[in-house]
């Protein structure tokens, strides 16, 4: 091992970074880190996917519907699936940080706490979207429905954003509690109802070819929810990670 003293004698300090750049650099680093680790282990995605497909399978047998009755329940079935699979992803994503003390590692870095929050939230969103992108075509094939409706995809995106924004915040709290795994759904579901309702109704509207006039309120609801809770999470995240 070469002594450090023989190598670089003067080393430029990190404080040379501009704060704005630091924010985005660290946010990007957190997202990259989650994606790279997941690409290696594929634990999180496979767990979410398998779970999602199992849920759809159970619905198939539990509801046992004739073809023409499938369309009305599709948005509901999809979102119940996404909500539960989403919980898995949120839990796991935070557990990784907590278990090896990596959360401390993140907090030690000279960056704004909100950069950590946004980094985790974006990572969680990407995972949730990946699951959805795989589940939607499979569902389409299994039930012979065309789910490739741009409106539906938009609503799914907006709903996922709302879900993940609140979910990341709450999972950060839940992971620090003893009752960690069961706590997240209990905290999350009552609060995220407007998202579920908005996403389901919006999706149903697009699938049934309703007038935009009837669908707009749901989209507005989703957008409002996303913005409001993004602001709240941003303001409150520091309190959830400090000691």
């Amino acid at each position, binding site marked *: *091992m070469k002594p*450090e003293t023989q190598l670089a004698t003067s080393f*430029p300090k990190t404080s040379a970074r501009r704060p704005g750049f630091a924010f985005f650099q660290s946010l990007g680093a957190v997202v990259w880190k989650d994606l790279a*680790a997941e690409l290696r282990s594929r634990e999180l995605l496979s767990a979410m996917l398998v779970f999602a497909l199992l849920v759809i399978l159970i619905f198939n047998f539990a509801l046992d519907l004739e073809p023409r009755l499938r369309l009305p329940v599709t948005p509901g079935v999809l979102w119940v699936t996404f909500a539960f699979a989403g919980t898995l992803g949120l839990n796991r994503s935070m557990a990784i940080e907590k278990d090896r003390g990596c959360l401390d590692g993140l907090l030690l870095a000279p960056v704004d706490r909100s950069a950590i929050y946004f980094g985790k939230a974006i990572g969680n969103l990407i995972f949730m979207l990946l699951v959805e992108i795989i589940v939607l075509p499979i569902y389409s094939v299994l039930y012979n429905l065309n789910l490739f409706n741009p409106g539906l995809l938009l609503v799914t995106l907006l709903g996922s954003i709302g879900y993940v924004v609140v979910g990341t915040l709450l999972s950060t709290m839940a992971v620090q509690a003893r009752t960690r795994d069961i706590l997240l759904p209990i905290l999350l579901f009552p609060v995220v109802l407007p998202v579920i309702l908005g996403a389901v109704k919006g999706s149903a509207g697009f699938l049934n070819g309703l007038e935009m006039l009837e669908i707009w309120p749901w989209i507005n609801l989703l957008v409002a929810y996303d913005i409001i809770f993004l602001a709240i999470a941003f303001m409150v995240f520091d309190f959830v990670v400090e000691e």
Partner: protein
Amino acid sequence: MIEVRKLVKRFGLKTVLRGLNFHVEPGEFVALLGPNGAGKTTFLRILASLSRPTLGDVRISGYHLPAQAAAVRSRLGVVSHQPLLYGDLTAEENLQFYGRMYGVPELPRRIDQVLELVGLAPRRRDLVRTFSRGMQQRLAIGRAVLHDPDVMLFDEPHTGLDQDASAMLDSVLQEVAARGRTVVMTSHDLSRAADLASRFDILSRGVITASVQRADIEINQLLGFYRHATQEA
């Protein structure tokens, strides 16, 4: 460099640190010893800006904690008994991640240097979860020096290491300290601390009860000194 006055830390109604005073000059290597539950880890976490003081004054390099914590963090390197590494990433990727978080300039070159320093260059492309505990600790030190901090905090770094791994760790610690850094290391292990430190402080029941320079004490007197400082008041 590190200036702590009348530090009090309470968790709810339980007081862990009771008016602790602590002063470290630049370049000193202080071994902080003490029994379990004395508050060593709590104290170190406060110095690391991970925990807030309830009362009292804490300054590092002149910056006040927790108010100016952001400025302090770029000057701090912390190694705790958890490695703070991501098992599913390679050694190199872990350093890349932390390098970006700290905004380390000329990162690839710096990573090479650090891997050389901790003797893990041959394993740079291996996943951290395949590393032994000793290797993880060394990589953790690498992570901690990556951004060239002035102050280093080690929380019982020898925990869980066998003799060989401990010896390797010691040589890395010596290199790290040789750079003129200020180091505070908590330890259970008196003999290990004795080889490395320039000063020994005893933390007992929430305050520093004794402090002695390495030059002023014989190694075989250290145990007696420790026992005396941690006895019932």
